[in-house]
Structure formats: C-alpha cells, structure tokens
C-alpha cells in the first residue's frame, strides 16, 4: 500500500458488495432527508484517518482503533484516498463521530460507479477486526 503524508486511509467494514453499497446509498439519502437536507448526493459512510508520515502499519492501527470505538465488525477493507479519487469518488469530512466521512459517488450513483466502488474495496487490503 502506498500512502502519501497527509493522505487519508479509508476503512469500510464488511460487506462491500454492490448490492449492499446500493442499499447503503439509499438509506443514507433517506437518513439525510429525514435530518432536513433537501437533495443530498449519493454517498456512503466511512471512517478515515490521515497518514502522519510514519509507518503505515501504525496508521492502520489508528484507523482500526477509531472504528472499533464506534462499531464492531469482522472484516475491514482498507483503501487509500488516491485509490478512491482515481475512480472519481470524493471524501467529505462528516463529523461527528470523529474521523467519519461521507464517501460521495456523485449527485446520483450510476450502477457503473457502484460496481467500480465494490471493485476498489474488493481488490485492496483487508484486515480482520474481530
């Protein structure tokens, strides 16, 4: 894994198949409309922490610690901010909770974009959380 100084390391808990991502986009949108937003973009929730320039393994541990403070899951897929931006996805800080981001697919998510995001999560490193 290549991670530049200050670049975000992103974690997505299992599952990350296209069907689950599509459902999460729908629920995320309805949640934001319920909270008062009028036309939120297509997005899913992720946690991400910036790489501080030291050992990448320490950034991975920091991300795992951040996530397990809020959630529990068996598996975590790790991707970099660059790997996501190369596919046209953007990260928007959406705290609280700390280090929570919206991973935005666009104003509307095409099926191609959803499959592309699934492939990003599938093809990258995964670690066991619990």
């Amino acid at each position, binding site marked *: 894994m290549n991670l530049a100084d200050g670049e975000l390391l992103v974690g997505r*808990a299992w599952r990350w198949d296209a069907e689950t991502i599509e459902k*999460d986009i729908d629920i995320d949108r*309805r949640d934001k409309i319920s909270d008062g937003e009028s036309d939120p973009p297509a997005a899913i929730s992720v946690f991400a922490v910036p790489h501080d320039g030291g050992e990448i393994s320490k950034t991975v541990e920091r991300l795992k610690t951040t996530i397990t403070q*809020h959630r529990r*899951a068996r598996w975590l897929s790790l991707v970099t901010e660059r790997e996501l931006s190369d596919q046209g996805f953007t990260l928007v800080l959406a705290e609280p909770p700390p280090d929570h981001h919206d991973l935005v697919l666009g104003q509307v998510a095409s099926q191609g974009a959803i499959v592309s995001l699934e492939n990003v999560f599938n093809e990258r490193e995964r670690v066991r959380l619990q």
Partner: protein
Amino acid sequence: MNPALTSSVRMGRQRSMKRVTVNPNRVSRKNPAWTVVGFEEVGEQLTVGERVVAVQPDPDGNFVTTAQVERLDADNHLAFLSVDWASFAVESPRYEHSVARAGRVRFFTPPRSGGTQDNVRLVPRFVA
C-alpha cells in the same frame, strides 16, 4: 442469580426478540451513536423502546448483540437503533451455554421456539 442461569435466561429472552440486520458502516445524521435501517429491511413492525437482536450475518457464524429502537420515521420508512456494539459476539447455533465447574460441565438448553423470560426451560445435564 447464578451467572450461568442469568446468561441462559438472557439468551432465552433474545430468542423471543425480533432480529434486525444491522450494517456497521451506517451512521445516522440525527444521532451519530445510532445506526439506521429501512423498514423494508426489518420485515416486522418495530416500536420505540423495543429491544431487538442486532445481527451481522456471517457465513462463519452470525455476529449478534442487542439493540434498542430509539426513533421511527414513518415518512422515510426508517428505524433508528442504539446498538450495543461492544457486545457483539458469534452466535452459538444451539443456544447452549456451558459452565465448567469442579471437573464437570453443565449444559443449559433454552426452548427452541416461543420462549419468553418467564417460561425458559433449563435442562441441566452433567458430564463426569
């Protein structure tokens, strides 16, 4: 109460609670401590204050804990849950709880269906 008995009763109570699949990635904007599920994902009607079994399905054994329904949004068909994330554990397929004590093992087997806290049946078996 005997801790083993307490645990068994708790599992029996869970057996009668509704099961709701939760996704650890979802964070509600209304309250970041909550997670959110669509009504269509539950299949049963929930009520505010109701306690449910939160499930993360897994082929290696479901990951389960308890959760409470905090809010319902009928307009957007959403239920907001506070999940006891720290207590997630692999679900025992037979709901058996064993306690090794003084060289023997005691098994408690809750009822297979329809059990409530009041009618949990404890079946002790002893193995030398």
